[in-house]
């Protein structure tokens, strides 16, 4: 019967010493420029939409719609996963990343059928964002309603 030479706590320290860290600075820079570029693109679409006189409510929806279209299309073409591998959060956080997280399972689970596959799996990754995003907006909305009388 052999015995482990380290206790689990000691072994954990050995493991963390032996494991290289992610290259943080490089990751930040890549996320910054790619994320920034996507945001600039969004701003450009928004300015273009202003010229179309879509109105205050429709303009942001139009901008978001175009970005979602781009994110989904690039996912379908097999490009967005490469951007994501390079940029990390820089391409995951903008709405194009949200579109990617919906389109990717839609492609992946086609073979399990329209209901149990695509339908059930479509929001496996985006679902938590939607659930907690909507829940948070309800809470913030309620707070705003309570304190709006005191606001300038």
């Amino acid at each position: 019967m052999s015995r482990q030479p380290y206790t689990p706590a000691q072994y954990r320290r050995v493991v963390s010493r032996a494991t290289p860290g992610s290259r943080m600075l490089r990751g930040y820079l890549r996320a910054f420029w790619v994320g920034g570029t996507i945001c600039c693109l969004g701003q450009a679409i928004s300015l273009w939409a202003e010229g179309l006189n879509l109105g205050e409510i429709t303009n942001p929806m139009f901008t978001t719609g175009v970005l979602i279209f781009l994110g989904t299309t690039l996912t379908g073409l097999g490009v967005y996963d490469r951007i994501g591998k390079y940029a990390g959060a820089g391409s995951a956080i903008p709405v194009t990343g949200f579109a990617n997280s919906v389109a990717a399972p839609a492609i992946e689970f086609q073979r399990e059928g329209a209901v149990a596959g695509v339908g059930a799996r479509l929001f496996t990754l985006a679902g938590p964002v939607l659930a907690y995003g909507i829940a948070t907006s309800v809470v913030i909305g309620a707070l705003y309603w309570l304190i709006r009388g005191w606001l300038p």
Partner: protein
Amino acid sequence: MSRLGAQTLRYDRPPVIAAHRSIAGGKEGEGPLGKWFDAILEDDLLGQKSWELAESEMVRRCARDALDDAGLSPGGVDALLGGDLNNHIIATSFAARKLRAPFLGLYGACSTFVEALVLGAALISAGGLDSALCCASSHFCTAERQFRFPLELGTQRPPQASWTATACGCALLRAEGRGLRITSGTLGRVIDMNISDANHMGAAMAPAVFDTLSAHLADTRQEAADYDLIVTGDLGWIGRNLLLELFRKAGIDVPEDRLVDCGASLYRQEQDVHAGGSGCGCVAAVSCGWIMKRIERGEFRRVLLSGSGAMLSPTSSQQGQSIPGISYAVCIERGD
């Protein structure tokens, strides 16, 4: 067959590896071991409707070729032993459906191939079977969708993550004949050192490999230097370093140049696989394609081959459980 020490079986009638075949995917074919594999896939869907069926077809082809080499028909083998990473090992059992041989489905995660060799050799040595086909497979695309994320999702992997190999290996064991012999096998215990990072399987498995290999050496009263080569399954290069550190700390002398990890050898650094290859097919294809051929060439005489598995599931990871590891080992010797 007799027992040595706590965990080791000595095969008094050591079975012969009558044939062995390996199939690897395109990325694996571009790696440093590419020329050793018997077949490289051009289409990783193998003309099938799904990744799961593709993996199953890979197993079927690999098994068929190994049986052909030995002049056996699919129904002529006494048992097929093997498994894969899919839920309920569907790739192997669906292949067994076509092969029509008696089937023993195994799951030892990435240790499955060596687990199959340990059991297959035991069944033959005990006189229960005349032949046993031991196999294991993995496919990058089936493993990704089951354990990680959809393929098209834009994510980053940490440096300790491994790359599931698209590969399959089959070894046909027979009671009589010429070829390499399996002379002993060591069973593994499930070892958990409280590693819970599902990306860091090398760290989760290294203590299990240490446990089985040191048990093997103690049970057979040997030292690591009695082997020309000690092969580990898919620890990756970080896990291999951790295993060397465990041996060093325990005072067991394992020469670094004699310890080879299949996962750390399968790809080139530029192939962007981070810590190395993993998956049941990694140790299966690398040992059937590379290690066994090199023993046959006379480069080595005695090799201790081990495989290791991280016995996690997406459910256990999501519930915050740590990762239990397991490892099996067999001694492969030239028969002359």
